[in-house]
């Protein structure tokens, strides 16, 4: 067990090192920061944008705008308040929501609707080409995914999710708990795999 602990620590230290490096470059207005961010978080943030706007072209616009914002706000990131990814996620998600809002105000036909209702709750149809990226997702049952989705992407409170999905609050709470535990399992697996690999080598 001590070796596992050490590996886990090494992994987190390594990611922190990379993050710290990126944050430093961002502060120095070094373009390399954007390259590194794109390489490490581009796909994930593109997924985040897509989850909100449900359109590939729009999602690309959102990603572009988000990176420009990240670039401009680079010196305002505070590592004591949030992990780098949390900060990136917030910017991207909010940019995507703003994009949807501006679209819904642009098209007069549409009535002003609450952002959380812009897209329907549910599991997305997964395109075959994304299957490899999303293999982990299948490990979580849809009923847990929906609750996690409501929490992380749609920013619903548990009460709101209960109302929206017509599921009792208690069930939402327990499903969220299980969903998060499943997530941790997947997250934890990565850490178990590394010492295993090292052991094999």
């Amino acid at each position, binding site marked *: 067990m001590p070796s596992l602990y050490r590996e886990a620590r090494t992994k987190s230290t390594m990611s922190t090192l990379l993050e710290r490096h990126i944050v430093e470059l961002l502060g120095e207005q070094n373009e390399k920061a954007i390259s590194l961010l794109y390489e490490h978080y581009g796909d994930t943030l593109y997924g985040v944008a897509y989850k909100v706007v449900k359109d590939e072209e729009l999602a690309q616009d959102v990603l572009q705008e988000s990176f420009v914002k990240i670039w401009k706000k680079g010196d305002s990131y505070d590592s004591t308040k949030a992990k780098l990814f949390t900060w990136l*996620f917030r910017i991207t*998600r909010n940019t995507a929501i703003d994009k949807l809002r501006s679209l819904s105000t642009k098209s007069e036909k549409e009535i002003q609707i609450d952002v959380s209702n812009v897209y329907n709750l549910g599991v997305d149809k997964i395109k075959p080409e994304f299957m490899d990226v999303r293999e982990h997702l299948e490990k979580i049952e849809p009923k847990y995914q929906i609750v996690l989705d409501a929490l992380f992407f749609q920013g619903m409170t548990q009460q709101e999710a209960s109302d929206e999905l017509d599921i009792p609050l208690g069930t939402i709470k327990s499903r969220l708990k299980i969903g998060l535990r499943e997530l941790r399992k997947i997250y934890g697996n990565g850490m178990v795999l590394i010492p295993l690999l090292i052991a094999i080598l």
Partner: protein
Amino acid sequence: MKDKIRIFLDTDLLEKYLLGNTSLEESQQVERYIAMYPEVRKTYNELQENLETFAKMHALKTPEGLKTKILVRIRAQQAGRRKFRRYAIAATIAAFIFAGSSYFFWNQSQNLQQENTIVNNKIKTLEADMRSQLEDVRNQFIVLNNPSTRKYMVNGNKKASELKAVAYINPVKKLSYINVRNLPHLPEDKCYQMWAEVNGEMVNLGVIKEIQDKDKLLALPYAEKAISYITIEPKGGNDTPTVQNIVANIKY
């Protein structure tokens, strides 16, 4: 204490904060809880980890060329910023130069104005001087050239027998002048002073300087039956004539 944390965690505020959906006040409250309670901090960190994991599960392959597009936009942004900074520096320098030169020119204009005032005043004084002198010369000319002008030779009395003066009196034009030609030398502390008795009052006409005044006509106040006197007074002149020191008198 436990209850407080439990209630806080039940409000979903932490989740809202995680996604950046809290107001400024709510954010401050959440940040306070995170800083104060290890349990809240642990939950927050777990939520952050879970968020990253869950988001990574939804990762999509970014299309080719998007990275280049983003980098081009960033570069344009940076170039704009650099250009702005360059303009800002240039504008600052220009402002300083402008302020400096403004002060310099203001200062210079101020000096010129002062000089202008001085020169103007000088011109005015000169003009006034000239006018009075011209007037004086004109009057002298009138007096000297006028047929009704009478000429009186003035000689000093015993006290100054060498004194010689010529007085010109014109009763028509009511002008009178005196030209003191010769004055006996006086000790250093004495001087000659001219007086005129006009309507019973003694009027001081000033000190006669020995040499320079040789060809100068001195105007006398005109009055019917007036008398002018030359007296010897202490150097610098006197307020009232010293009667015993009268050296000459001119009646006209």
